[in-house]
């Protein structure tokens, strides 16, 4: 059992036999009153969202999740196909994967959380490297790191990058925040 004070962004809970993940979390406490936890929850089975308010002493169920290491293979329409070590296929839908889909790279190994053998969520490596497929050229000689411009990486995800980063460069992205961290390689030639 969790209590409401365990709530935080990313916590997985269970309500009426359905696993949810906390996607937004707001703690408030009126003067001398009890803590109020306003949460946005994502249904891990179908991706739908739910707003829920917990009060200070509420008890919350813990979902029984298992974890399996899988390799990402390919995308088929809205389905993302993963393979276990026995080459059994595990399919995750786009809406269940969420933003994680942008960071999948062919043959990347990820941990997948399963609930009653159904895949719920992928645990990505903290950093992934992605090629920048489009960004406006930055001003020549500008090496400032605090001025940013939009860039699109392979798979269609948009990030903000410093001006000196060019199309064709490889960017290192933090999958927890979805933000640019570093340029790992400049475009060849």
């Amino acid at each position: 059992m969790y209590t409401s004070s365990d709530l935080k962004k990313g916590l997985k809970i269970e309500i009426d036999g359905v696993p949810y993940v906390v996607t937004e979390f707001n703690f408030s406490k009126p003067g001398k009153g009890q803590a109020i936890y306003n949460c946005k929850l994502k249904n891990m089975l179908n991706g739908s969202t739910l707003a829920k308010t917990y009060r200070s002493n509420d008890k919350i169920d813990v979902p029984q999740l298992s974890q399996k290491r899988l390799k990402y293979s390919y995308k088929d329409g809205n389905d993302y196909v993963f393979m276990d070590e026995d080459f059994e296929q595990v399919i995750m839908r786009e809406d269940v994967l969420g933003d994680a889909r942008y960071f999948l790279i062919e043959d990347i190994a990820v941990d997948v959380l399963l609930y009653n053998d159904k895949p719920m969520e992928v645990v990505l490596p903290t950093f992934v490297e992605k090629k920048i497929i489009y960004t406006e050229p930055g001003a020549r000689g500008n090496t400032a790191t605090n001025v940013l411009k939009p860039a699109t990486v392979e798979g269609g995800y948009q990030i903000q990058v410093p001006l000196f980063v060019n199309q064709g460069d490889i960017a290192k992205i933090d999958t927890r925040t979805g933000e640019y961290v570093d340029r790992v390689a400049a475009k060849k030639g």
Partner: protein
Amino acid sequence: MNIRDKKSVFELRSRVLQCVRSFFIDRGFIEVETPVRIPVPALELHIDAELSDGKYLRTSPELHMKRLVAEGYDRIFQMGPCFRRGERGHLHNPEYTMLEWYRAGADYIDMLVDVKALIAFVVSEIHGRSALVYKGREIEVMPVWECLTVEEAFLKFAGWNPVKQFDADRFDCDMVEKVEPGLFLNMPVVLKDYPAEAAALARCKAGNPAVAERWELYLGGMEIANAFSELIDPVEQRRRFEECAEKRRGMGKEVYALDEDFLSAMKKGMPECGGVALGIDRLVMFLSDSVEIDQVMAFCV
């Protein structure tokens, strides 16, 4: 945001601390420092204390400051760290800085006069005028403040009257979800006359025991300060502590011993007095147009 980028906020914060000190010193208050590690924290239903090697870190300096008032210190203030376990959000950090002041012979309305003068003084010292912009809205802090009773506010925003029939769960939820969002006006807002069940350490109104002499100040929709006409009746104080202890036990929370030193100080004779607790971090948020408490703290541990 990294610490380097916060420098302008910390310059402002430093000036706020100086303004607050000179405001009180000029009015004949003395600055006191009471213990941070204490044998027992004040019993409050929803405030939990951090343990510190067999003692507790104070959740507020209230009981020690009132002991000073009982000993004849009739105008005192203190600014310092307080600690509340598990309180973390965009307006909360488990360690934060509290300003408290107490004035003998005053009631909660007198304390409202104090806080009005304090806010007007600090805002004009920092911004050079009596208005500022917070979250995109121009807020004028002088001379008119909106003052609503809790009854009026709940009837207006939540559609029920907690003074007539109190429901603690509904009161707290509606306060956060329905009432407080309505308190972000272009002037400071005071919510006053709380239901007796939410009196905490305030005395009840002489002619109307269903209502406690307590107010809360909101700046930019954010709760900044809490004030009481302080309860000075030792029998009633003990009864409230015991009732609170019983409720905490029922909730499975740690039950703190009664602060007998405080109760006996009150028994020896405590003058009528008013007290205010004001969150310095939130005041700095208001003055620097910050939306997260982390923006005004150097390190959030």
